[in-house]
């Protein structure tokens, strides 16, 4: 996938070895996901599936799970989330959020309820860094280099940002085949990172129509910023976020 994943774990001093062991397991999981799903690796299951060298049944069972999720999310997003690109299977848009979510579950199951996993800017947060507060997640502003667009406090939830601020316009409207240009970035906050990440990407492809679409999506809130710096947020988002004045 070619991204950085950071782990932020709140734990007692005495648990340092347990933290290291749990993080090691989570890291191994992420490497495994990369080996199965990377479209850049010719030996990955996805690449071999695309090249006809491997049948779906012969792939890792994770592949079937992910495509099932992809079809659910495609339906939920009215087709704006797509797991094919240029005629090839490419579930990349879902795999990052999903694998980070699972990495967080591994930490939780290892007895570490207070942690935050950040996969290249897509954040899964559980518990809090200190007793009595959740994780403060700052959302980068797509146009201003010296400030954040908002800060949200998250206890058990996810924050994902999808944007066109990086190398060119990498999100394509699957209905027109053209790059999405209406919005510079979309941030989605919700209970599950798999969906938050995929919804952010889909909303970017939808453009301003996403504002209405979010009305029918329970539990997920969004902040969008257009290339001219004008933004909108769902009502729920403004109630949980600290927005700069």
């Amino acid at each position: 996938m070619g991204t950085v994943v950071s782990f932020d774990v709140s734990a007692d001093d005495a648990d340092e070895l347990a933290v290291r062991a749990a993080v090691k397991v989570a890291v191994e999981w992420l490497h495994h996901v990369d080996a199965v799903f990377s479209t850049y690796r010719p030996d990955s299951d996805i690449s071999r599936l695309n090249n006809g060298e491997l049948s779906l049944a012969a792939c890792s069972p994770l592949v079937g799970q992910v495509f099932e999720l992809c079809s659910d999310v495609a339906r939920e997003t009215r087709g704006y989330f797509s797991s094919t690109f240029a005629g090839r299977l490419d579930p990349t848009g879902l795999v990052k959020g999903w694998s980070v979510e699972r990495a967080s579950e591994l930490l939780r199951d290892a007895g570490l309820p207070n942690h935050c996993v950040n996969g290249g800017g897509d954040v899964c947060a559980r518990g809090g860094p200190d007793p009595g507060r959740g994780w403060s997640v700052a959302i980068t502003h797509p146009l201003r280099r010296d400030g954040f667009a908002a800060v949200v406090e998250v206890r058990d939830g996810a924050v994902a940002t999808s944007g066109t601020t990086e190398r060119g316009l990498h999100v394509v409207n699957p209905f027109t085949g053209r790059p999405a240009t209406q919005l510079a970035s979309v941030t989605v906050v919700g209970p599950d990172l798999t969906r938050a990440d995929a919804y952010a990407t889909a909303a970017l492809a939808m453009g301003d129509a996403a504002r209405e679409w979010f009305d029918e999506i329970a539990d997920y809130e969004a902040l969008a910023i257009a290339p001219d710096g004008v933004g909108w947020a769902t009502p729920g988002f403004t109630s949980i976020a600290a927005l700069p004045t």
Partner: protein
Amino acid sequence: MRRAILAFVATVAGLVVLLSFKTASGKSTNRPVALAGTTPSDQTASSDNSAPSDNPAPAASSTPSSQPSQPGQSTPTQTPTQTPTKAPTKAPTKTAGTKTVTGSSVPVTEGFRTFGNVQVQVTVSNGKITKLVAVDYPNGDPRSYEISRYSIPVLGQEVLSAQGTSIDIVSGATYTTEAYAQSVQAALDKAKS
């Protein structure tokens, strides 16, 4: 209770980029574990310390040896697995409790394209990162320059805030992140030795 911050590059086996511990007493007494043996301090990183933010451009000329690759240049394999090849350009500078070290020059890639290199100079005072300066960053074309101008300060801020300011995590992806983190870690390794 204390907090561990552990970052790594997912595509490079076992590469630990940042690892620091913080005592969760409300004071910013974090210290990078990579600098074991140094004394934690109560010094707080001020926003001034995100120096790369304000003026990245002039710094680029200080590393004439690392010319950013031109966009469109292809690389034979997936480049995230590439290891930094360039040796640090600067020996550690030592004053009482303060060290300034320059990390490796790390290529910034997306897919099969290489856009340039990121190289970060890190100042450590009493075991705490107090300043990050990007001495090199992709700037070979206007688009890369724009991205660097935007992302480098955010990355510097993220490293500093990992040490205990009010923000815990930053959402919003940059491909520059990976190269930046690798260079910072290389600098921390240098500071430790």
